[in-house]
């Protein structure tokens, strides 16, 4: 098995490398001119790479001939730390995976442990999870669009509008859990803190303001000619390749595949809410941007329904253990529709206080598998946009 050295392979070497005839390998782009390629390392210290991330690109003029993503700069070996501490102690570490959306990380972990032990969750806790989860999805999509537009050169104006709204949502989190981002809120069998009636009122007021913000955001961006010219037809991803490459989340739905884990697995109480799943036609960057905008509106719908219907009651089973939690031996794989894609936790318990194996299925990492496919033949400037439309967070890619 010959490996190529990503720093010095020529086009000829690349074309000779062994490939399986079954594999969906991207087509090679024929370089023009004398075949000499310019090799550039974009990152890891780069304003547009959403964190410490490097792309080794080989360019023929402005066209991308080869692209290799390189990461691991933020690798903290969370999976090994989890093998040494208790199940509860891993919960604050999950906050720091996809650090824009700590609530959904907590939820995925709690769901996996509840699958492992068969623990039931009280109804009010499920409603609280949905409310906080959809608020997280809203602020994640708004920030993601904001960063994408910033990379297009809008110097941060839409990003700051998104952040202004995000501040209101973070204030809600702080009032409830004590922390704006690293919330450490979900527990195995429910939630940590109950929401007071005062908090519910502030939440309803905030959600009422989200529709106005979504309208303003759309008026600001959607029919902008520069946006349309730069994103339409760029970075097209075909649906069959997307499914085969394990792509999930808004990127998969922008390619036209109707797969939203909230509808497929019906985890929690998502089957009680009436919401649609927006799908894209072309699978380009513009579709991903539009899908995120539409999903923000669907989140508002879910939030309005949940805030109306939330019952009173306990938020945690009183017999559920906080300390000395030792699930019986077995394994479980639990997954949710996180804002970035399918976030899954695979846990193997050997009956002890720490998990034997603790695995995070990171949507950002797996969505990057076809980054090269989408970028080949495009210009360098488009690479930045395509990469921004994948919407990754390095905390999740590297764990």
């Amino acid at each position, binding site marked *: *098995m010959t490996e190529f050295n990503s720093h010095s392979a020529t086009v000829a070497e690349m074309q000779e490398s062994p490939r399986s005839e079954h594999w969906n390998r991207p087509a090679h782009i024929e370089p023009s001119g004398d075949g000499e390629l310019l090799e550039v390392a974009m990152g890891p210290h780069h304003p547009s790479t959403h964190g410490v991330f490097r792309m080794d690109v080989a360019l023929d003029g402005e066209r991308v001939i080869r692209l290799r993503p390189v990461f691991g700069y933020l690798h903290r070996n969370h999976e090994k730390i989890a093998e040494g501490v208790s199940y509860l102690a891993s919960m604050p570490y999950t906050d720091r995976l996809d650090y824009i959306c700590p609530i959904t990380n907590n939820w995925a972990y709690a769901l996996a442990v509840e699958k492992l032990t068969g623990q039931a969750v009280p109804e009010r806790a499920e409603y609280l999870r949905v409310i906080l989860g959809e608020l997280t999805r809203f602020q994640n999509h708004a920030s993601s669009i904001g960063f994408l537009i910033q990379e297009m050169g809008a110097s941060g104006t839409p990003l700051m509008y998104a952040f202004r709204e995000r501040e209101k949502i973070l204030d809600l989190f702080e009032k409830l859990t004590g922390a704006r981002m690293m919330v450490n809120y979900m527990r195995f069998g429910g939630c940590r803190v109950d929401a007071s009636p005062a908090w519910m009122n502030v939440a309803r007021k905030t959600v009422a303001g989200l529709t106005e913000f979504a309208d303003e955001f759309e008026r600001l961006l959607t029919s902008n000619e520069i946006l349309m010219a730069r994103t339409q037809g760029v970075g097209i991803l075909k649906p069959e390749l997307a499914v085969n490459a394990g792509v999930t989340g808004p990127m998969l739905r922008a390619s036209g595949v109707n797969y939203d884990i909230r509808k497929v697995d019906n985890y929690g109480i998502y089957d009680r809410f009436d919401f649609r799943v927006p799908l894209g036609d072309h699978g380009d960057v513009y579709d991903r941007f539009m899908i995120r905008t539409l999903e923000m509106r669907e989140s508002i719908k879910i939030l309005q329904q949940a805030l109306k219907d939330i019952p009173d009651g306990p938020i945690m089973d009183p017999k559920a253990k906080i300390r000395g939690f030792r699930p019986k031996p077995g394994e479980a794989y639990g997954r949710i529709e996180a804002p970035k894609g399918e976030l899954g936790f695979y846990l193997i318990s050997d009956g002890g206080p720490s998990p034997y194996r603790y695995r995070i299925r990171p949507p950002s990492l797996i969505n990057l598998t076809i980054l090269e496919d989408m970028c080949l033949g495009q210009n360098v400037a488009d690479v930045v946009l395509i990469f921004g439309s994948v919407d990754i967070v390095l905390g999740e890619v590297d764990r």
Partner: protein
Amino acid sequence: MKTVEEIKAAIEAAVPGAGVEIVSNPSPSAQHSLRLAPGQAFAVAKFLRDDADLALDFLSNATGIDWPDKEFGEKVQVTHRISKPVDGPGRKKTQIVEEVVEETRIRVEPGWLEAVYHLYSVAKRHGPVVLRMRTINRTDQVELPSLTPIWRSAEFQEREIFDLYGIVFTGHPDLRRLLMWDEFKDHPMRRDYREPDDFEYEPTAHDDVLNRTLEHHAAIAGQEEAGAGE
């Protein structure tokens, strides 16, 4: 969706000689797995993806697990033939006597590395189907067939398993380290991995880290003395 037994039957019908075993999962999640023999795993995986009923076109998660060697101390009754001096009239005589002695023998059961795959179907909206493959041991026979040609999403995940556990996937188009740098030597997620000693300042060290910190500082003090003594 079919049960695990039905899937096993379908695989055995389609791929003759496929060594498939059901590994049962005692937890309430009831996600039982199918253990594949590495020889026919590629053909089995292709069948699972292309079959009209199963249509498992989506590989959600691929991960590795380390099962280290297990040592058992066994108490064994061993019969020894010893010649013992015997008292008796006249010159000393020796007699061969059989003595039964209890010894503790250490038996080592070799461990293995495991790769686990979680498959779902986007077309049929069912899943998960869990596949497992084991290597022969943890030292030199660590090859498994790569499933990347069948599901592209295994590309980075198998690279990560190679990086962190050391399983070599034959047929992987680009098997390099993913998270650690290319020149790194060890496999960090193995259970016997020992982190490098970099204890500059550990004011609240506990247990294992405390012991290693004290050793580390003792070693440095010893070196300094040796250096100063010269």
